[in-house]
């Protein structure tokens, strides 16, 4: 007779991702914002420019989504570049 087999199941709840948001301001140069996106996120110029235009026309843009720790690092770098950046959980 075999022993009853106990199956253990572990549920792993993934932490929700965080959005990094950049907000429009009237003074920061558009070309500067594009440059900052290229440098901080390593995005190609087309994507950096498109995100900058979204900030400019819509007032804000989600520029990155992912783990909290990395989001904090990005917000810190964006603040070092004097961009208005915040982070929020999705």
């Amino acid at each position: 007779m075999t022993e009853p087999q106990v199956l253990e199941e572990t549920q792993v709840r993934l932490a929700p991702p965080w959005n990094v948001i950049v907000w429009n301001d009237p003074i920061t140069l558009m070309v500067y914002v594009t440059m900052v996106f290229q440098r901080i996120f390593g995005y190609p110029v087309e994507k950096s420019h498109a995100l900058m235009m979204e900030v400019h026309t819509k007032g804000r843009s989600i520029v990155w989504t992912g783990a909290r720790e990395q989001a904090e690092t990005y917000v810190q770098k964006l603040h070092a570049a004097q961009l208005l950046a915040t982070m929020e959980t999705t």
Partner: protein
Amino acid sequence: MMFPRVTRRPDGAAAIEGLFPLHVEALVEVPELLEKPEGEAHRRLFPEPSDDAKHREDWERLVRPELFALLASARDILVRDLKGLEPTTPFGPVPRWNVTVPAQHVNAWISALNAARLALGARHGVSTEQDLRPELVEKDGRIEMDERTFAIVKINVLAELQALLILEGLPEGERPPASEEEEGSGEEGA
């Protein structure tokens, strides 16, 4: 009339040439603007990272000192380089000025100019792109400006230099393109 220009030298230094007295006046004001930003200027240069109170508290304690230090470093670099400002036509009717920014200082200049423009804007309540285009009033052949309008003129003058440094002073591979939407080199508002 020749406008100021920036030329990237073979050693990577950015040569800024042909500055008008207004450019110089705006530039020499930058260190004071960044020394101890207070009130609205402080809030703009060191924004909150989120709505969460605990997160803000941690940010103030752990991150903000580093952001202060970075801005102070950019300011100090600009102060040192501004000592090299040279008049090119000291005996002419309109003096022009040159200054050279060493290659390793170009990014600090771009950052310091950006921060100074933001600080000026915050001090003078600039909250829309329209605010950056004040109506200039001419009286008896002279343009009259109140303090706020003059500050806005300086924001725009520093924008011109910042855009020139980005588009002409950085290595070619690091320069973002000036797009059609931007109508030139460096329109504000993003």
